[in-house]
């Protein structure tokens, strides 16, 4: 089942072309990695899925419906979103941050509490210790874990990740990557993951889409990516060798 589909999507802003004729689909259960350098259009593509941006040409379909036909609020509440800067609310406790979308969706207080406890526990942050703390009292890695818990809170079928581990130290990054894999096994979510790190793409992706200059350069599963022969793919593969 196709969950997300880009159909000939272009995006221009102020005369600058950010995406050109992108066509790509994401099946349920997949982890699509959008790989590319800075400015390749990968974040722009991601933001079109939850209606933060809309194509200037073409369509993005979520559940076979163009994003322009969705009520943006309804669409976004079905899609978890994790960004590098995390963006936790500094005036909310960790518990309230994680329970944000369930609360917006009108869950009962007891259901929210159960869900928050389950997720914090699952991410290795004992709720008794962490629920009532504030984001500023947490380390960068802990904050990003809370970011992931918040994205999973209302049990959305689709998750978007925009270089979520980019600001973390290498040890912490690997730890969170492993956690991502184990969460994926447990929760069976479809994910779209933006990164400029080929190692991360190979580790986490079930399909890698390489973007360059706003165009789709290549799509391949990780085990076949090493055989892709485009210039851009070679440039990325060269980084692996040192």
């Amino acid at each position, binding site marked *: 089942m196709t969950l997300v589909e880009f159909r000939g999507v272009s995006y221009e802003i102020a005369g600058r072309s950010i995406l050109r004729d992108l066509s790509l689909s994401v099946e349920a259960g997949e982890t699509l990695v959008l790989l590319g350098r800075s400015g390749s259009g990968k974040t722009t593509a991601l933001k079109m899925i*939850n209606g*933060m941006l809309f194509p200037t040409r073409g369509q993005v379909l979520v559940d076979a419906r163009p994003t322009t036909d969705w009520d*943006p*609020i*309804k*669409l*976004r*509440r079905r*899609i978890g*979103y994790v*960004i590098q*800067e*995390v*963006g*936790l*609310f*500094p*005036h909310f406790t960790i518990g309230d941050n994680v329970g*944000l*979308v369930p609360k*917006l969706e009108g869950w009962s207080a007891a259901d929210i509490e159960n869900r928050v406890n389950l997720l914090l526990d699952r991410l290795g942050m004992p709720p008794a210790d962490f629920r009532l703390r*504030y984001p*500023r009292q947490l380390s960068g890695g802990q904050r990003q874990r809370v970011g992931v818990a*918040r994205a999973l809170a209302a049990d959305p079928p689709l998750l*978007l990740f925009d270089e979520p581990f980019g600001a973390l130290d290498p040890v912490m990054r690997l730890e969170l990557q492993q956690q991502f894999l184990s969460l994926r096994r447990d929760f069976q979510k479809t994910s779209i993951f933006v990164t400029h790190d080929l190692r991360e793409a190979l580790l986490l992706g079930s399909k890698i889409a390489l973007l360059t200059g706003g165009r789709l350069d290549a799509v391949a599963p990780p085990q076949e990516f090493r055989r892709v022969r485009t210039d851009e793919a070679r440039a990325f593969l060269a980084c692996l060798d040192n």
Partner: protein
Amino acid sequence: MRSDLWSEILQLTAEHLLLVLYAMTLAIAMGVPLGIYLSRKEAARPWLLGFASVMQTIPSLALFGFLIPIPFIGGIGKRTVIVALVLYALLPILRNTFVGILGVEAAICESAVAMGMTDGQLLRQVQLPLAAPTIMAGIRVATVTTIGTATIAALIGGGGLGVFIFRGVSSLDTAQILAGAVPAALIALAADGGLGWVERKLSPA
């Protein structure tokens, strides 16, 4: 004579406080919503900020003079004074409201929108609480300025502590000037301290 002076000080202080209170209530009631509006409508910013800035650059004495001949809001008396004070207080409140809202970290607002918050939820649950210390700072600055400016009210029959000051200046009576200036300064200090405390209470960190 002594007790006369004291009771007059009390009466004029009360009058002064009331002028400031009315003016600040109106300025906050107008400035905060206008600041919120500006945070949503970029096109309106140069107009409204320009208007508020021009108001602040007019010397206060001249502004009172301009207002007197205007029907309904002008004339001699408290109403004209309050209108002028509101026009002065508007800019710091308006500016700090929208600067405070726009100053909320972009990643926080992006997350809020991406989580599916409506614009109203974003404003009430995220932007206003996080902008509150900045808004409060604007209110504090405006209040302290208004307490000082309100002394000029006496000149157009608005009463307040300025009555002492103008009487003292015209009769070269330092005691009279001090009877007006000292309470005004004390009120300003108290307002600055009190509102500064509220401002710190509103800061999340």
